[in-house]
């Protein structure tokens, strides 16, 4: 399957994506030059987008080595496909879709195609959020520390993490996620809800704000 596939079309941009992905100064020129084979322009695009692409891969895969491999794949794929970018959506949105599809293809190749993704994205009972709906003392204080959330997301079961990253971080709609993950929109909604419940549970555990995973190079933002 082509990573760009049917779901890489540019006229299905989720509302608000342009707002969340404003154009970067010099990006449009670099894209046009890269389309004409300008290697310097392509290296500029890499410099502009490497951190976001890598962070996305790392969040989806939870593994530094695989995330670096997929970052490499995403940019090599970009090099081959950049001619088809028509500028109808933000370049980063387009690049992120391409990356998400490559990561999903990679995961399917690793064995997720043996059973339907709808089943495999459901984690075990042990990983599922506890039904602590009625406990008054489980409330967060009204704010969540970004770093603590990042670490809690990293410790989510893969299925929850995938849907949470795609919806709440990347801004994809449930119908898009359902298409990408080959599951129902109801399943996507349900997984997202369980992911948020699990995060709520994790964020209340003080040791969640522990050190970042070994080997991950964190950058200031």
């Amino acid at each position: 399957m082509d990573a760009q596939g049917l779901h890489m079309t540019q006229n299905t941009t989720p509302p608000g994506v342009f707002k969340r992905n404003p154009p970067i100064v010099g990006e449009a020129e670099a894209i046009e030059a890269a389309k004409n084979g300008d290697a310097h322009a392509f290296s500029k695009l890499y410099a502009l987008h490497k951190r976001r692409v890598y962070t996305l891969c790392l969040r989806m895969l939870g593994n530094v080595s695989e995330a670096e491999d997929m970052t490499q794949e995403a940019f090599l794929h970009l090099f081959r496909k950049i001619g088809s970018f028509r500028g109808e959506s933000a370049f980063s949105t387009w690049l992120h879709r391409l990356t998400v599809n490559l990561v999903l293809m990679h995961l399917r190749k690793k064995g997720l195609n043996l059973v339907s993704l709808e089943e495999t994205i459901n984690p075990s009972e042990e990983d599922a959020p506890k039904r602590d709906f009625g406990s008054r003392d489980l409330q967060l204080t009204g704010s969540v520390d970004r770093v603590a959330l990042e670490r809690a997301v990293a410790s989510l079961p893969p299925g929850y993490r995938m849907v949470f990253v795609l919806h709440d971080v990347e801004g994809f709609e449930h119908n898009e996620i359902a298409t990408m993950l080959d599951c129902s929109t109801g399943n996507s909604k349900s997984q997202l809800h369980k992911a948020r419940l699990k995060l709520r549970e994790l964020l209340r555990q003080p040791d969640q704000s522990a050190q970042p995973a070994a080997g991950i190079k964190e950058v200031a933002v």
Partner: protein
Amino acid sequence: MTPKLPDFDTMTPADFERHLPEFFASGDGRVSTDPRFQTFLKNNPLCAALVRDLETIAETAKSLLEPAYEPSDTVWSEIEKKLKKKKN
């Protein structure tokens, strides 16, 4: 198929919990400000607290779009190497 929604004013906390993924997915994704749930949330503070927490998590998640991690320099070296190989 979309499940049949309960009466918003008379639903139980269990009904609310069961339909919460759908409630979040409808409208603008904010249940706490949705006029349909104001009476229910006022009468069920624990449900209101849960909604606030989940909305806080979703809101904070948007800030994670900004990249937090940097790939090692070998990633670009490998890309360059492969592109050069392709050219030759």
